């Protein structure tokens, strides 16, 4: 990450504008290390932990991410952050942006999954079904498509009938 991703100009600009970044060497003692790590452990590096301003964990990711994958991941985190503040339109914008700008990123199908959750909060059940169907069509082999493939036929029939 330090050699490839963080020096990338687009990454540096996006992180600087949208996040408060802290860097901790897992091999060196640091007074905030335990509190920063929370209840988890640093089993491998790089490890990314995203917190909101109250210190609540939004997301945790282990392993290297190249610039485009990382930028998609950051948009996903911003969407999750907006969800925690009940800013569902903002969340939807971040989730949709992650999937539209970086459709090949591993975060893209997850962003669509969460976009459906935000859509549900804004427009109800028909919207989550519509968005999950779109996710399943675009990323059928992903775990996120499997997680979204839960709508029973009777619910679809009810929605089709206008209910």
């Amino acid at each position, binding site marked *: 990450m330090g050699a490839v991703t963080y020096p990338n100009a687009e990454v540096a600009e996006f992180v600087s504008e949208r996040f408060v970044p*802290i860097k901790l060497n897992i091999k060196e003692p640091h007074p905030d290390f335990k509190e920063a*790590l929370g209840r988890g452990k640093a089993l491998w590096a790089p490890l990314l932990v995203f917190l909101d301003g109250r210190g609540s964990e939004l997301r945790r990711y282990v392993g290297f991410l190249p610039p485009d994958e990382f930028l998609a991941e950051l948009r996903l*985190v911003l969407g999750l952050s907006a969800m925690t503040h009940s800013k569902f339109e903002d969340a939807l914008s971040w989730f949709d942006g992650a999937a539209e700008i970086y459709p090949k990123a591993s975060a893209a199908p997850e962003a669509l999954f969460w976009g459906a959750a935000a859509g549900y909060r804004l427009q109800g059940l028909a919207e989550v079904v519509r968005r999950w169907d779109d996710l399943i069509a675009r990323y059928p082999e992903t775990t996120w498509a499997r997680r979204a493939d839960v709508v029973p036929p009777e619910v679809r029939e009810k929605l089709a009938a206008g209910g």
Partner: protein
Amino acid sequence: MSEIQWRDRLQPALEEARDGGKPVLLYFWTPE
């Protein structure tokens, strides 16, 4: 060229995050 300005303490970063409405990115790394 822009460069990320890494903070080194948690509580000031959380305060900055609250004030700015931004999430905190904690990057645990190793030089190896």
